[in-house]
């Protein structure tokens, strides 16, 4: 009993430490990245909501669900990719201009929406 409460306490303190340090570290990221992060979270949220909705209502318009869900997921993936490309702390994409990265992103986004529209109806 004791050990369990201890564990939970440990866990709590650990978690608080993590959250705190994460917060403090995260403040260092540039604003631009933060904007992207906001959209990433948004995309994830919509995806999760749709999934829950599907669980409640059932899978009937399955193609609509798929297109909606994958649309959010795709947007999420693309944003993550973009974030990694423009993240100044990363070393992999030194020579890449953010504008070029964004152009790629737009291209992919258009493609994604095209496919989604095609599939939704």
């Amino acid at each position, binding site marked *: 009993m004791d050990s369990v409460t201890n564990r939970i306490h440990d866990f709590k303190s650990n978690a608080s430490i993590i959250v705190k340090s994460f917060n403090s570290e995260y403040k260092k990221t540039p*604003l*631009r990245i933060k*904007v*992207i992060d906001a*959209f990433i979270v*948004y*995309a994830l949220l*919509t995806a999760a*909501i*749709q999934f829950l*909705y599907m669980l409640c*209502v059932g899978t*009937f*318009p399955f193609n*609509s*669900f798929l*297109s*909606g*869900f994958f*649309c*959010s997921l795709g*947007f999420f993936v693309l*944003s993550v990719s973009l974030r990694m490309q423009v993240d100044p702390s990363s070393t992999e994409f030194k020579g890449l201009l953010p504008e070029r990265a*964004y152009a790629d992103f*737009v291209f992919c*986004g258009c493609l994604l*929406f095209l496919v*989604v*529209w095609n599939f*939704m*109806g």
Partner: protein
Amino acid sequence: MFPVLLLLLSTAFTCQASSQKVLVLLDDFKTRSTHSLYFNDLISRGYEISFKSASDKKLQLKDWDEWLYDKIVLFAPTATGLGANSDHTTLLEFIDAGKDVLVAVDSSASELMRSLAADIGFDLDARGASVTDHVDYVKFAMADHTLIASEEFMQSSAILGNFTDSAPILFKGAAATMSPESTLGISILGAPETAFSHLPGKPVTDNPLVANGYASLVAAIQARSGARIVLAGSVDMFSNAYFTTAGFETASGKRFDKAGNRAFCDEVTKWAFHERGVLRVTNVHHSHAGEQEQPDWYRVSDDLEFGLDIFELVGGVWQPFKADDVQVEFVMLDPYIRTKLQHNEQGHFYTAFKVPDVYGVYKFVINYHRAGYTPLELAKTVSVRPFRHNEFERFLVAAYPYYMSVFSTMAAFFVFGFAFLYHK
């Protein structure tokens, strides 16, 4: 112009109907006089009769590809050959060409007659055997009890018309059995319960060919070529003597004022010669519900209408057929729909139903087999195709959250673009 044409047509039709050529094949020209009542009845119904001897070497049924006769009456039980031929293949060809034959034999039927019977699916009992009834024979001078009176005739107005005469039919001759596998045979006249078939005068050593229930005295088939063939086990039953029997008594003590032979034989002949029980189908039609045009295909779950006209030949005139048991099936491998057709008393049969939710090539099938009537077998193919891609329901209410999410994501995409590009 038009009425003239009609007139021509109608005269052509009546001519054709009236001048049907009947060939009567005999063993012996004496029959011509002993059976004259029967032949006169035929002539009075408009048939043109020619008498020939079955063994006449000059006998010809066919001139090149053209049949010389429309019907054949075969009253030649002992004939061993037909004309110059020693077998009956020409006769079978005649049947397969859709032409009617009435055969009467007796207990001395020749091998030729037996194989003819076998080829239409009947088996005549052995040579010499005749139908005997020791319990209920007709009291005439004959001692061997082979003259019997049967009332076991088939209850079918298609074949016997309004032959409701309760008089029994006098019969003296051979019985035939029908194979249980025969799908075409019908027994028009059965034997009384106490009758059996055996060689007269010989002791019965084991089970004889039981007559009643198995044996037919008068049997018939409707060949798939359309031909009708009647096989009667007795030539005598068509004779003047039997036609005019004034009154008789059976062994069991029943008395009858007259025999029913004349009416019975005439009715059977009418049926055999396609004067009765003939059906005709016209105007088979199917369409979308409420439309007239006949499409090549339907979509699954469409509503459709199906109809056809059936007419019956009554006394030489086509009249609307009335029956409540005509069915149509909508078949793809198995019948998906089987429904009765309604009719409007004018001969038009119709129904409406919904195409099943399975695509494929379907057939409308009418399979109407009633004893005595021309069998109606027709099938009409039509394809049933699935929904086209743009025929499904769109913009479902249940899917609105998904549409919303797609729109919101796209909006986010544009907002993001602004935020990303203008935020330095």
